[in-house]
């Protein structure tokens, strides 16, 4: 491994790089612009709204980062995001308490992730197709078991509160879980063997295998990780309405293609490319921050609905171009 | 036997990459109908030398003389254009294309001379491929098969056939037998002998297996630390002598 490659690898294992700095800077800049257009942007209520957008998106994006860093991707996250809450609903109405129902539904998410992983490494179907196929299967399952109907989420304390329906010290619990997740994921990527193996596989799969990295196991683990995160955060989203006194919703179409596209977009804006070997989970967070600020700000300032898509598209392309340019510079500089 | 001067010669080539001096006044001469083997330990500069000859790098100083005239290459295309073809270890072979498409890739035969519509004359190319493969005594019967299904030695044959067809005057082969088994290696060495017999191509061969090189080469030069430390005519030397020369050079005083 030449020194440029090594430096890049080390860079990726730092918690934050200059890449995230610039994305955060853009988010701050946008916030200032939006506030100047509508002072309501800078209210606590609005920050909570932005926080909710970030919660719904960033951790799943982090899961995508773990996969994209290895050259894979997961198109089934949107379907899993809806599967887990509906399974909780079904098990509860069948008489099972949430202590059993929730672990079962998370297990289902793990099963989907395992399927994704096994189809990719054993059947050697490219991840794009494997997860696309599973997306159809799980989406169909969601619609079949729900008969296309949305239901109210069951309510059982303390589980409903813990899984997104309550507050802790005045802050929505899902925010806390999100922050917690990032701490754990960043630490894992930087300090645990699984993180190192994920990065090195992406950068040089043949080389990694030669030195003993278990590429297949690492891939399967990351598929499971991504699906599980999508499943758990799907529960948070379903229970969300309970926080402000409403009733949670088990919506078989929750997440969907929108979540898939936005999680990938967040990962890309945050600096992860598909070439593998570089990308940070914190980048996913900042990417998600940017698109959430963008979405919320455009809504608050009354911009027309189309601007979001256009600006998001520009953000993705611009980020990726800058990302590739800076990678080339660091490679040549070695 | 060489009747006139060398087809190609390199004279006092120097090349550095930053602080590393890869070639320090190296020279060679290659003659039509003969095989020149370049030997030497790792890092001696063999690879750099042929890369300069094939236009990938540019020498810092020194001359390349082709058919008696000084030449300069700015890119591999320049070298290829005057007839210097190189076959690297990756062979520049596309697995998913047929044998004859590989031979003609980027130099395809077309119907007519229309500017935009470039229709392939597959039949003609296939026939020409069969002919040139016979010329080099290859045993590839079916030129329609995808090259990916051929053995390593056969793939070498296709790459060489390509160069022969396009009238290469100098054929540089970089480690052609490196990843081949016994049977395939023999196939490639026979191929090199066939090329020799044609009489109009100068072959320059880099390989690690001295025995293999000595079995087909007419002359060998031994590089060490960027300089040519010995030259021998194969028929008046031996494998042992050459091994000795290489070992002495690399252990040598410095």
């Amino acid at each position: 491994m030449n020194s440029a490659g090594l430096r890049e690898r080390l860079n990726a294992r730092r918690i934050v790089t200059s890449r995230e700095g610039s994305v955060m800077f853009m988010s701050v800049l946008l916030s200032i612009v939006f506030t100047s257009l509508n002072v309501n942007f800078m209210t606590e209520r609005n920050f909570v709204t932005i926080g909710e957008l970030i919660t719904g998106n960033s951790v799943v994006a982090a899961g995508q980062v773990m996969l994209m860093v290895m050259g894979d991707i997961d198109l089934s996250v949107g379907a899993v995001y809806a599967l887990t809450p509906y399974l909780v609903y079904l098990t509860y109405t069948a008489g099972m308490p949430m202590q059993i129902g929730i672990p079962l539904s998370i297990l289902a998410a793990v099963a989907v992730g395992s399927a994704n992983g096994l189809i990719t490494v054993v059947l050697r179907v490219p991840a794009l197709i494997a997860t696309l196929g599973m997306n159809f299967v799980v989406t169909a399952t969601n619609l079949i078991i729900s008969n296309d109907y949305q239901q109210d989420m069951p309510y059982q304390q303390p589980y409903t509160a813990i899984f997104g329906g309550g507050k802790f010290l005045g802050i929505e619990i899902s925010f806390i879980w999100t922050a917690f997740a990032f701490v754990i994921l960043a630490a894992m990527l930087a300090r645990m063997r699984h993180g190192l193996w994920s990065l090195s596989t992406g950068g040089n799969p043949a080389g990694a295998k030669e030195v003993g990295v278990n590429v297949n196991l690492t891939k399967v683990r990351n598929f499971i990780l991504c699906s599980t995160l999508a499943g758990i955060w799907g529960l948070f989203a379903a229970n969300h309405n309970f926080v402000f006194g409403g009733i949670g919703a088990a919506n078989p179409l929750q997440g969907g293609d929108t979540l898939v596209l936005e999680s990938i977009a967040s990962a890309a804006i945050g600096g992860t490319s598909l070439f593998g070997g570089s990308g940070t989970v914190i980048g996913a967070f900042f990417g998600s921050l940017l698109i959430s600020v963008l979405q919320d700000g455009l809504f608050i300032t009354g911009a027309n609905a189309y601007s979001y898509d256009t600006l998001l598209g520009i953000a993705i392309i611009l980020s990726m171009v800058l990302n590739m340019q800076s990678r080339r510079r660091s490679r040549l500089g070695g | 036997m060489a009747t006139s001067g060398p087809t190609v010669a390199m004279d006092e080539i120097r090349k550095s990459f930053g602080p590393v001096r890869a070639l320090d006044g190296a020279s060679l001469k290659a003659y039509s109908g003969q095989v020149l083997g370049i030997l030497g330990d790792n890092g001696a500069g063999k690879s750099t030398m042929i890369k300069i000859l094939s236009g990938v790098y540019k020498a810092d100083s020194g001359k390349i003389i082709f058919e008696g005239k000084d030449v300069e290459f700015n890119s591999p295309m320049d070298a290829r254009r005057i007839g210097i073809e190189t076959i690297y270890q990756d062979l520049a072979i596309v697995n998913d294309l047929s044998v004859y498409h590989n031979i003609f890739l980027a130099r395809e035969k077309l119907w007519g001379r229309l500017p935009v519509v470039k229709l392939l004359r597959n039949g003609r190319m296939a026939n020409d491929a069969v002919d040139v493969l016979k010329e080099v005594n290859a045993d590839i019967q079916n030129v329609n098969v995808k090259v990916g299904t051929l053995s390593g030695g056969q793939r070498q044959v296709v790459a060489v056939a390509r160069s022969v067809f396009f009238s290469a005057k100098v054929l540089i082969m970089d480690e052609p037998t490196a990843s081949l088994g016994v049977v395939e290696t023999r196939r490639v060495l026979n191929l090199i002998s066939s090329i020799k017999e044609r009489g109009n191509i100068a072959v320059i061969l880099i390989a690690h297996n001295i025995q293999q090189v000595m079995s087909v080469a007419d002359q060998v030069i031994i590089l060490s630390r960027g300089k040519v430390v010995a030259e021998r005519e194969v028929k008046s030397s031996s494998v042992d002598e050459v091994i000795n020369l290489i070992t002495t050079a690399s252990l040598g005083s410095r």
Partner: protein
Amino acid sequence: MGGRETGFLRRFLSLREGSILVVTAAITVLFAIFYVDFDSPASFFVIATTAAPLITIGTGQTFLLTVGELDLSVGSVFALAPCITLVLYGDGIPLPVCMIMAILCATVVGFTNGLISVKLRVPSLLTTLGMFFLVTGASLEISNFETITSPHGTSFEIAMGGGTVGGYFPTTLIWAITITAVFALIFSYTTHGLWTTATGSNINASLEVGVNTTRTKILNFMMTATLAGFAGVLETMRTETAYALQGGFPLTLQTIIVAVIGGTALVGGSGTVIGTMIGALFLGVLDDGFAIVGLNYNYYLLTLGLVLLAAVAINVRVQTIRRLARISREGAK
């Protein structure tokens, strides 16, 4: 000796198109036997109109996948071109001119995709993802998020997708089949097609021998976007409406699916335009079959997912077997 497969059946199945042809034939026969309405003209019409845009755009996607790239923005270009066409038409410009200008815009999108993916080295999945959003926004902006109705009735409008031949053969399908024929020829019998396969199979080797891989890739991006725009215009003429969100991400996914189950490899180097057409017909048959039989759409989705996984797994396996056959022929080392 080279590997010439013996036996007609083995050779047929080893054709990339072999397996999907068998599957499509099987499923058509199945539906026809069990459900009487299946081979009616109305049913054929549904299959044809479902398949036609997938064939047209899928052809471009086939070239792109073969060259080692892909385009996620086709679904949005599918909406952009008709929106541009009808908005310009509303300003009084003659329809053919509107169409040409709209399709040229599509080509520009494709060129941009190519430029960014090839010259700026951004992975095409992410480039075209960004472009998907960008173009969707543009379509929404141009159409003001309204549904626009298109003119219909003149023979030009009918020819450009707006009608049928003989009452049941939609012109969109005629266009699709023509495009397939032309592009299949381009794929197999021109240098562009050869260079597409070469670049996708081994870009380094192709560069070394002098193939212009950059131009090949960018041309394929332009081709795909143009076809997507053209397909969108045809479809709008057929449905007589244009809508900024028509097609979208689901359509994009379908174009990739039909190419992949038709035998084109996602990793590049191996493509079949005919296979894509058969794949699109298969999708049409599956969709229509489920609808006619009265089975829930959700079961169609489930079947689609399973078929996709099975088809690609089989295709990958076949390619692996071929590769292993070569390695075993290497002999002792």
